[in-house]
Structure formats: C-alpha cells, structure tokens
C-alpha cells in the first residue's frame, strides 16, 4: 500500500509539472494565504520578543502613569480589555501636582515626568519636524536604566539651562554626526546645545511607547517655560524602592492621583508587565484580523484547487477507465486524486513558506522590524495547506472514483 502511495505521489508530481502554468495559478491562492499568515505571525512574534527584551531591560518594577483610561480591569485588577481608540481621546491630563504626589507616594524612589513639546527644530537653517522633543527631569536615565554614550545628562543644578540630550537616530539623522556634542539647534526661538547622546534604546517596534532613539530630551522646567506651562505630560515613570512592592506602590499611586482628580479615574497606572500585555493585546487583534483575511484567501485557493481537479478528472477520464479496467478499486482511484490535490496545495504551502522567508529577510534588512519565523508557524502552514488539499480534493476525487469503468474507457 505504501509503495502505491509513493507511485501516486510520483504520478501527482508528474501531472502537476506537466501543466506548470495551470498548477502555479492554482497554487496562487494557497501561496498568498500562507505568505500572509506566516509573515503576520512572524512579525507579531518578533515584536513580542522585542517587547520582552525591552521589559527585561527596564525591569519589571517600572510603573508608568498615563492620562486617559487605556484599559478595562475587573475587580481583581486583571486587564480585561484595551480601549484602542477611546483610550487616547478620553480627556484627562496629568499635572505637576500629580507628579509631586506620585513622588511623595510611600515607597516611590523616583518619579520622572515626560512631556511632549510640539514644534520643529532648526539646525543650520534647516527645519526638522520628525524628532519628538521631550521635557523631563535629571532622573530619567536612572528610571530607564539607560546609559549615556557620550557627554552627560543634565543634573539638578543646570536644570534651567538650554542643554539637550539626544537619541541615536537624531544624532545620525539630523546632525549627520555620531557624536554631535557641542552642536546647537534652535527651538521655539531659543538656542540649545547638545550635551549628550544616549546609547541606543532597545525599543520595541509597534509598541505603545515613543521611540526614544528619535527623541531630544530637554529639561522639564525649560519645556514648561517655552510653552507657558502648556506642555502636556504624557507619561510619568515611577520606580519603587523595593521591586517586590511594585503592586502595592502602583495601587498607592493610583489612589493618590485619583484623589487629585476628584475621585475620577481618567488616567491609567500600568506596571511594566501590563504594558507588555497591552501591546500583545493589540498585536493579537491585528494578527487575528489579518489572519481572517488570509483564511479567506486560503478558502479561495482551496476552491481553485477543487476547480482544477474537477477539470483534471474530466480530462483524464480515459486514464481512470484504464486504471479501473486493470483492477484499481474506487478507493485507490480516490486516493490517487486526493494525493494529487494535496501535492498541489502542499507545494503551494512550501512555496508560500519560501516566499515568507524572503520577505522576512527583506524586512530585517529594510525596516526595524525583526520578524521571527518559528517552526510552529511553518508547521501550521504545512498543516493548513495539507488540510485544504484534503478538503477541497475530496469532491473531485470522489467524482473520479465513482465513474463507471466502461463509460470512462469510452471517453477519449
């Protein structure tokens, strides 16, 4: 029986190859479906790994406070859902008062506000709008556990001077210089001197966080002065004294800020782990969405295979007649055509995986995304194409198997 199967596979490959264009077009649906599934899942997987490594870098104890209600929680505090769109629009702002109450909360070692200042910068007469300007306090490197590669960060004593620390991408992108220390730029009419460059941040692409590599950090008081106290705090980072107490500290911060806001919870306190779960929630949603589209493509591909197999059965009616006359049972004929449909769809799956690998390499070369193709995804792709072949090959195979041998022999 096994040797017959081998013969069937050989026959199937020969028949697929004898009509190359038709086979390729037939496989197209499967190929597109597999490519989209594998690529989407591998991007999701890659981003998740980046997030995890970022989290390990920052430490699990980092607490972030953001305006707006980003997540829904049940009574136990577990996140039950993410407000993808309303979360960012719900009004609610963090003020200096909130920052100081977070700072004063029991168990908090340090609290660092991050405020966004809008506007572009002028370097040597050219304007750049693509970098984020963030006003912050001297404790930021400590909170993020991030080292300064060149120069130094501002400290409590020069907090009111126009100094700036920049991320790696800003250095190379705007100043076109790995170490642009001492260079100056103009922002809101004032001149700033670059005094430090951060080491590259391990930022997770597609995560909720701002890309710090593409940011310019200026002292918080200066930012407030420039904008006449209108710079909105978009995030406050807090570090507890004792990492094990992170949960208690987060709860205390929440209560303090809530009392500042008239007992209204129009802000979100997230521990680093939860930040990750927010990211992965969004990723899962995206993956499911595109996965659904890919599933439709696989369905269409399967119908294509069924169609071509039906044509093939009619074309090869005479062959079916010969095989039946010399003693093939209906079951053996059915298996032959079933195997042929499966070979077609599995070949599509293999080509799809190969194309995905190429896309994977391309993404790594040309973008910051680092997709990871795991063996599970490849196994899934192979399994799905196998199942599609079997499901959509069954009807044509049964048609071939049920054919009356005399009628089939008469067919030329």
């Amino acid at each position, binding site marked *: 029986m096994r*040797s017959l199967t081998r013969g069937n596979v050989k026959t199937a490959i020969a028949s697929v190859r004898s009509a190359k264009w038709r086979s390729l077009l037939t496989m197209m649906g499967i190929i597109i479906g597999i490519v989209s599934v594998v690529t989407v899942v591998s991007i999701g997987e890659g981003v998740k790994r980046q997030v995890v490594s970022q989290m390990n870098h920052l430490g699990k104890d980092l607490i972030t406070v953001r305006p707006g209600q980003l997540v829904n929680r049940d009574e136990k505090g577990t996140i039950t859902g993410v407000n993808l769109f309303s979360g960012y629009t719900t009004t609610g702002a963090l003020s200096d008062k909130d920052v100081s109450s977070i700072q004063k909360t029991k168990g908090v070692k340090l609290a660092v506000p991050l405020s966004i200042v809008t506007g572009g910068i002028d370097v040597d007469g050219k304007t750049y709008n693509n970098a984020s300007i963030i006003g912050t306090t001297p404790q930021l490197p400590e909170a993020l556990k991030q080292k300064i590669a060149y120069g130094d960060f501002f400290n409590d004593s020069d907090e009111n001077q126009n100094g700036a620390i920049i991320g790696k991408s800003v250095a190379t992108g705007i100043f076109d210089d790995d170490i642009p220390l001492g260079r100056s730029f103009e922002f809101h009419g004032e001149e700033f001197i670059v005094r430090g460059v951060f080491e590259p941040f391990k930022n997770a692409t597609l995560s909720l966080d701002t890309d710090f590599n593409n940011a310019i950090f200026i002292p918080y008081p200066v930012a407030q002065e420039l904008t006449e106290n209108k710079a909105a705090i978009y995030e406050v980072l807090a570090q507890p004294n004792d990492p094990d107490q992170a949960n208690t500290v987060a709860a205390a911060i929440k209560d303090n800020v809530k009392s500042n806001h008239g007992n209204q919870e129009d802000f979100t306190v997230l521990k680093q782990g939860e930040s990750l779960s927010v990211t992965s929630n969004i990723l899962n949603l995206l993956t499911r969405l595109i996965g659904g589209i890919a599933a439709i493509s696989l369905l269409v591909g399967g119908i294509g295979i069924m169609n071509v197999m039906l044509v093939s059965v009619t074309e090869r009616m005479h062959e079916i007649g010969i*095989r039946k006359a*010399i003693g093939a049972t209906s079951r053996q004929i059915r298996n032959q055509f079933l195997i042929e449909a499966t070979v077609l769809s599995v070949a599509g799956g293999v080509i799809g995986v190969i194309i995905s690998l190429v896309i994977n390499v391309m993404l790594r070369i040309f973008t910051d995304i680092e997709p990871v193709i795991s063996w599970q995804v490849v196994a899934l792709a192979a399994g799905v194409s196998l199942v599609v072949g079997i499901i959509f090959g069954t009807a044509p195979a049964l048609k071939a198997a049920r054919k009356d*041998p005399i009628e089939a022999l008469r067919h030329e």
Partner: protein
Amino acid sequence: MSVIELQDVSKLYGFGDAANVALDEVSLSIEQGEFVAVMGPSGSGKSTLMNIIGLLDRPSHGSYNLNGRKVARLRPNQAAKYRRDTIGFIFQSFNLLPRLMALENVALPLAYKGVGLTRRTRLASDMLARVGLQHREYYYPWQLSGGQRQCVAIARALVNDPALIIADEPTGNLDSAGSRLVMELLSELHKSGHTILFVTHNPELTRYASRVVYMHDGTIIHDEKTKIGEVAQAVRRAMYNVSRTTVEDDLAGVSALMNAVPSHDNASTALASKPRKKTSKRRGKK
C-alpha cells in the same frame, strides 16, 4: 473445468418502450485452455458480452460463473478485485498510460494488488522479457511502435497470471507486421495453457483460434470448433462466396463477412446471388 459459464445472460439498456436489448439470453461455456475468436457486426453485442465477461458490466438477467464462482452480482469494488486477479485486458487502442514507462505500465496491476516495489518491478521485468521487450523497459509508450505497445499491454494483462485474457480487437490499430507479432504472441500464450477470448473482424485471424463464435443482434448464432491454422468453416465459405460490401454497407458498419454468416436464410441467399471475390484484406469498421 469451465473457466466461463454464462447461463441465459441478458443485458438491457433503457426502460419500457425504449428498452434496447444488447444481449438476449446468451449461454456460453468456455473451457480452460481455449482460444476463442468472437466475430459479429457492430452492434451485435460483442462488446457488451466482453464487458460482462470482463466484469466491467453486470448482466440484467442470468447467471455467470467465473472459475466456479458466481460473479453476476458483484459490487463494483469486488468486481475490481476480480478483474485485477483473474482477468487480463488487451484493448484495440492499447490503453497504456502515457506518462508511465513500459515497466511501470506492466507493474500497475501489481501495484493495485499491493505488491512491493522491488518485487513488482522484477515481475514486470520478467513479463516484458517474455513478450520480447526486455530492452524497452524504460521506454515510454510514444517511443514504441504499435506492435510493441500492444506487446507491453499483453505483458500488463499477463502480469497477475490471470485465468482469462480478454482481447478486444487486439490487432485493430496495427499494420500487418504488428498484427502478426501480436497474434503469434497470443498463440504462444495459448500453447502454454492460457484461456484467451478475442474479438476480431479479420477472418484470417481465426486461423489462430481453436473456436469461433459468431454473434448477431445480441445472440450467438454460430459456434464452431476449428483446427488451429485453419480458417473457420463459416468464415471460409464467406471468404469465397461473398463479393464485396457496398458503400452503404460500409457506411452502416456492416462487413461483408457478416452478411455471409450462415443459418440466416436471407444472409445465405444474399451470398449465393453475389459474385465471388476475396475479402481477406477487408476489415470490419467499428
């Protein structure tokens, strides 16, 4: 022992007024080792009879014993297994699978039986050697001459060591050299004890047969044992008496030979009235 035992076998197509009787209560018994030629005009029921004997079709009525087993009411899958194990088919148009090499074609029935690859390749190779094609094992059908293709088909029919070989106009698509090759081979098989049943329109070929059966309108109208090497009596009479078929006869697919079949009064009178002419080269049209 009888290999084939047909008792009042009928085959009807259609229903009621439109019913068409393809076989009308045919009884036929074929012994082990016989080499039977079946003759008759198109539409006389030869093919239907071959299909029923070959288990490709089921009779509407009557009983059929093959090798002592009742096979008239087999289900399609059982019939397939019987075909595989006890019947070898040889067709007019060879019916080899074009994408398989000669060796693979011959090995196919063994594959369906579940014989392993090594063993079935060896058996198929032996069988090809037996039909004189040991040097053509790896040729595809389109690389072989017509006669060679038919020999491959014969090897395929033989490979399962069948009790019965059915050949439906085995020389119909061959030139005289090919015909000779194929008929000599069948004759050899007959000598080595195989039971062979073949349909032909060529009266010369009855020389090879040990028995000739004539069919007309779904019944057997004449059945005679012949000596090997001699043309059957009825055929010989036809050959020397019959003039020629008219264009209309040819168009209608009726060969001169069939007009000559004895025991039908109108046929014999028709023969007598026509001038003599050889018809040995003439082959019936389908």
